[in-house]
């Protein structure tokens, strides 16, 4: 494996945080409101991840995402537990692929609860597929400098004398 002793890997303790202990339908049911509630953290994490392309450099951002999601689901549990579990149950059992279209009634009840209690409105159905501008304080990563080879053949100095071609042009029939 290419991971050597010189590769810095975070320790187990640095990476251990409380994870979201929810199943697929439960996550899906809360997806839209979660995306609105944690939009900044999510965008920050994904920006970091795509800019640096290294999971080791985005641990703090990732922890912020999980923390925000935990807080969101705590909020849901506090005020909308009944509506939420009803919606989850519907998503889970109404279709084979957790289809949203068959659960509009329970979804409306859940949406209303979230709107009344936390003022989180459900965005329109394609909101998270749109391209958005994210305002951040993260410094822009330096572009990769051009590769310098130590043993590259040195080129001619700029003021080298350029003699005329000894045997004329290769394309003698053209010019």
């Amino acid at each position, binding site marked *: *494996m*290419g*991971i*050597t*002793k*010189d*590769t*810095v*890997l*975070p*320790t*187990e303790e640095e*990476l*251990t*945080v409380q*994870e*979201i202990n929810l199943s697929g339908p439960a*996550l*899906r049911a809360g*997806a*839209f409101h*979660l*995306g609105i509630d*944690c939009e900044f*953290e*999510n965008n920050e*994490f*994904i920006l970091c*991840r795509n800019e640096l392309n*290294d*999971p*080791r450099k*985005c*641990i703090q*951002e*990732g*922890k912020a*995402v*999980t923390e925000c*999601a935990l807080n969101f689901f705590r909020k849901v549990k506090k005020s909308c537990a009944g509506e939420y579990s009803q919606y989850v149950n519907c998503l889970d059992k109404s279709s084979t692929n957790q*289809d*949203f*279209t068959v659960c509009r009634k329970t979804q409306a009840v859940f949406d209303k609860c979230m709107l009344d209690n936390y003022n989180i409105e459900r965005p329109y*159905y*394609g*909101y*998270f*597929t749109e391209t958005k501008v994210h305002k951040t304080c993260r410094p822009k990563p330096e572009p990769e400098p051009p590769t310098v080879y130590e043993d590259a053949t040195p080129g001619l100095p700029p003021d080298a004398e350029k003699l005329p071609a000894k045997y004329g042009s290769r394309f003698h029939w053209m010019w």
Partner: protein
Amino acid sequence: MAECLRQDMPPSGGYKPIYYKRIPAKTYFNGPALILGYFGITAGSCYLYYLNYASIQREELERRSAQFALYPLLLAERDREYMKQLRRNRDAEEDLMKNVKGWEVGTYYGKPIYRTVPKDTLIEPSYGEYYVHADYKDFAKRRHLAYWS
């Protein structure tokens, strides 16, 4: 014998006339009506198809949107677990090869796999390397998922 022969003769009054006149099938539509009807029905069904198509696109967009909303959360969790497992793999290799003289973890007797990259670069291992200390069944399951999904 001649008296016994009786020739078959036409019925009295002669044969009926041979009926050869063409009877065309009853026409419900004339040509222009058929052509216009074809275009009309096609246009109508194209509209219905469009409605169905648009609704399917909308549903798929909604599914994708929900996935994108959850993606950072799942990726963050996955990254943490992935880095933990990389460390476990490195420790397992160190433990496995501790009796081999001159063996250095992640290299072939001190010769690194990647020479031109900085030493701290994280090169993500392939499935075979990642699962090398795991049960073959787990590896096959993961590979199956990755290649068929």
